[in-house]
């Protein structure tokens, strides 16, 4: 029953977002962003709804959602932590930072901690390369991140 209500709520929300965006040229990307901004992910159950509105097949919608690293099809944890894996951060020790994060959180990339607090993701450049290594927590970038800084970020997110 709970699930059914949730599904109905989702449908209503997504319908509203569809009607806000479907008139745009190339509407699919802005629409997917709007859905993920609102509910945190793009549910697979919404593909047919989106497809009907934009005259696309379910396969086409699925193809676009899964092409882009940014879109996710499942609800993330309360916070999303992205660790930069690109060259500049590697030059400043990001590999050790990645290992430290995975160990502390007891997850690998694309996984969420058991308390649902943090989803860990890899990212390839945050545009803060003069202050590597970098970590992004939700929408904030942190520069020159040490293992201790990372511990503090994790503690804050779990609080």
């Amino acid at each position, binding site marked *: 029953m709970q699930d059914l209500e949730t599904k109905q709520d989702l449908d209503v929300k997504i319908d509203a977002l569809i009607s806000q965006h479907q008139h745009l040229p190339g509407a699919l*990307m802005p629409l997917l962003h709007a859905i993920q901004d609102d509910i945190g992910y793009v549910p697979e159950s919404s593909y047919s709804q989106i497809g009907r509105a934009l005259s696309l097949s379910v396969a086409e919608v699925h193809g676009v959602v899964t092409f882009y690293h940014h879109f996710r099809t499942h609800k993330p944890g309360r916070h999303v932590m992205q660790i930069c894996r690109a060259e500049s951060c590697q030059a400043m020790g990001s590999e050790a930072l990645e290992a430290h994060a995975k160990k502390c959180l007891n997850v690998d990339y694309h996984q969420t901690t058991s308390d649902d607090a943090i989803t860990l993701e890899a990212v390839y450049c945050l545009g803060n390369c003069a202050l590597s290594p970098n970590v992004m927590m939700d929408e904030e970038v942190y520069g020159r991140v040490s293992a201790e800084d990372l511990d503090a970020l994790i503690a804050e997110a779990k609080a």
Partner: protein
Amino acid sequence: MTTKVYIPRDSSALSMGAEKVAAAIALEANKRGLEITIIRNGSRGLYWLETMVEVATDQGRVAYGPVKVNDVSSLFDADFLNALSLNAKTHPLSLGLTEEIDWLKKQQRLTFARVGITDPVSLDDYIAHDGYKGLKKALTLSGAEIVKAVTDSGLRGRGGAAFPTGIKWNTVLGCKSDQKYIVCNADEGDSGTFSDRMIMEDDPFVLIEGMTIAGIAVGATQGYIYLRSEYPHALKALNEAIAKAEAAGYLGENICGSTHTFNLEVRRAAGAYVCGEETSLLESLEGKRGLVRFKPPLPAIEGLFGKPTVVNNVISLATVPIILDMGAQFYADYGMGRSRGTLPIQLAGNLKHGGLVELAFGITLRELLYDYGGGSATGKPIRAVQVGGPLGAFLPESQFDTPLDYEAFSSIWAVVGHGGIVAFDDTVDMAKMARYAFEFCAIESCGKCTPCRIGAVRGAEVMDKIIAGTDTVKNIKLVRDLSDTMLNGSLCALGGMTPYPVLSAMNHFAEDFESRQAIKANATT
């Protein structure tokens, strides 16, 4: 009398705690009954000094940095608001007059003329600092005259491909169509680059002005900025600036009372590196998977939604206003050879003084790494430098005297690209970097062409064998052979240039590939 205090809102400054510093300064001033006006400016680009706080004086701004929250009370104790006082000058974080800081003073900031100086989202501030002069000039010229100015300036695409901007514009100008587009490629995904982000966060109006001029020049009425999703602060700044430009008549219909129309919208990318390739970007803007298109047709002839489209990088477009304002010759007088003007260079990776250095083409890597970069952050020797992002070659110390110039780099089989410089100290394992180049290509491949889609995966596998010391000679030969296929058989630069980091690492740092047993032994001791 209120004192003006400048605290950057640039995301690199925020990454070092600028928001908390701003709050602490406001609180402390209030507590001490001192009247201050805090202005959230862009960053000057001396990132190792962030959070850099500046105080206005009769002689110009005085800088303090790097300021942390715990430094705030000591700054007030030293009367830092009275920045010319002896007490303030002797504070350990005092850097003196900002404009006199050697690192900044030696630069030639044209595209970045306002960055760090103005409030990025204040239209008044923009106009007070020579903003919209280029557009005013453009409105007195014909489309062909604007295109000629851009061509004569020698401006080449700053995104990486270095194609002459004016020639691209001229093709679009010459196309007859009911609709044309200006697309700004703001999908800055190269590691070691942040100049696009700085422009968009710290001087968004200059990009808006450049795109408006482009629209007027070629007869396009709609523009899109395709912005990477990793840049939320740039998104906010751009949208705020666009709204202000619209309200003041700098965007929309009848721009500045003329008959020209230009509308502008920011579209968010979604974390696909390949969408920095222009045809893949256009597919994405159309709401599709970012698959690379075959060329021809060129986007200039059949681009977005099949219409003639100018696709330019942020820096190319943001450089147009000063070219129109000061004239093509003014810009062309900077630079060397066929690389005219200035390049916003980004110093990144393992460097003591990372940040934004805008200079005329021609400066050598060595000057950049040591005179500006201050050597490695770790204090160890710099062993390798990657210029031009993940698809750029690795350069050894023996090539550090190469001047930054498109042709000079191309003659040593390297690329200037978007001007990002990533330094590595002597702990770097170049075989692992070569493996990473393949891995990155595999993660980001759009999948359309086989050399890139399959080659990248196989490349990483063979590199694993080399790293493990298995059949080294045979496997090195195999990687070279595979690289040759990718170089010559890929559809776009992702597959086609992944061999640059791979082969340059092999050519210049052969010992990291050939003597794995010795490396392993070293690592365990």
